[in-house]
């Protein structure tokens, strides 16, 4: 299975191109899943069908569509943690302390966490079921934060694991010297295998490392979509730098909505964006003036680059 991310500034045509690529890959004989992670979903509008967080087969073809509900994923995560917190800190309920845990859902980073958790589940569960997963991402800022999250989290967890190891070593020393180690009757763990915190940390590390390996691996491509205008150029430059800093693969950029009147500015934008990036392939997509998005009748072949790398 290969994954293809479509990223770029809002309104440049990420969803349309993601849909067109998904359609063409399916037409070429592949089983394809197109997923939208953009909170302002367009996938259903493009294919003229109502979508939800459940996968839907498109007109008996081998193309499946899905719109991930990030809010629902965030709520599921909060509820799972809340029930565990309420169970452990049940003595706080008379003081209504449990209501304070509710604010967790507004804590920074929960949306990114929900997105990366949904992605991890997708990579893990659908690996055998599809040849390609095409992902329509939210606009640049949120996408960069989502893509950066696994690497940052692994770096933090490594520091926490190191500190936790020191704690367990010291607890083990105390156990050896005095025979036991407890806190007012509660036995404190001194072995890595018995320490719940260490087990949770290592489990989290493995999960995020898997996502990071997938994102940085050769079965993943991050595609940039941009338009022939300077606002799109500046944001695309930030995205390219961000993706490079994270060591993630970006091999294809789509110059979308090209037509004759803007050809001068288009050449300049392309030149500025791809300066020093000989590793990137550029696909030029003409402006489609049809009254509605017609991604599945697009003439241009958009999938050559992915099929070559299959």
């Amino acid at each position, binding site marked *: 299975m290969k994954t293809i991310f479509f990223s770029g500034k809002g309104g440049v045509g990420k969803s349309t191109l993601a849909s067109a690529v998904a359609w063409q890959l399916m037409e070429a004989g592949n089983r394809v899943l197109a997923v939208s992670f953009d909170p302002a979903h367009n996938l259903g509008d493009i294919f003229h069908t109502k979508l939800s967080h459940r996968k839907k087969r498109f007109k008996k073809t081998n193309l499946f569509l899905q719109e991930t509900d990030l809010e629902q994923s965030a709520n599921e995560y909060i509820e799972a943690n809340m029930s565990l917190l309420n169970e452990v800190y049940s003595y706080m309920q008379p003081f209504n302390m449990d209501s304070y845990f509710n604010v*967790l859902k507004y804590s920074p980073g929960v949306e990114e966490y929900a997105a990366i958790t949904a992605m991890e589940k997708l990579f893990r569960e659908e690996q055998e079921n599809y040849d390609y997963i095409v992902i329509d991402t939210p606009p640049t800022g949120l996408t960069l934060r989502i893509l950066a999250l696994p690497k940052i989290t692994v770096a933090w967890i490594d*520091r926490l694991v190191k500190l*936790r190891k020191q704690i367990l070593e010291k607890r083990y020393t*105390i156990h050896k010297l005095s025979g036991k180690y407890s806190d007012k009757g509660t036995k*404190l763990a001194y072995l890595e295998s018995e320490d719940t915190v260490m087990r*949770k940390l290592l489990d989290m590390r493995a999960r995020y490392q898997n996502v990071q390996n997938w994102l940085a691996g050769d079965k993943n491509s991050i595609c940039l979509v941009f338009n022939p205008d300077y606002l799109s150029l500046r944001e695309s430059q930030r995205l390219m730098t961000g993706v490079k800093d994270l060591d993630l693969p970006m091999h294809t950029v789509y110059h979308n909505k090209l037509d004759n009147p803007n050809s001068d500015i288009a050449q300049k934008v392309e030149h500025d964006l791809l300066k020093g990036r000989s590793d990137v392939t550029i696909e030029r997509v003409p402006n489609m003036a049809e009254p509605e998005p017609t991604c599945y009748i697009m003439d241009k072949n958009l999938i050559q680059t992915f099929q070559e790398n299959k």
Partner: protein
Amino acid sequence: MHGGKGGVFARIFGYIRFFFSTMDQSHRNKVTEVTEFEVKELENLFVLLLMGSFTGIPSPPSFVAAELLPHLEHEIKVLNERAKNSFDSLADMASLLDID
């Protein structure tokens, strides 16, 4: 004489053994006390690092803290204790080093 020479030696040997075992126990207690102090400092640091956003220091993504929170009752107690005694941390150190 009751017990003879052997009995005297045995008693002396017993006293020596008692002396060394008491000394050993005393050293063990002291080392345990110092290590317990160190471990509490590390536990305090662990929670501080994990929940750094409450104290204004750089912290890991909040969901890492949220996922570990249910298992950190002991460490949070240590953090509270440290916060309560933070105005007198020198006294803590002096008592650990037996300085009157």
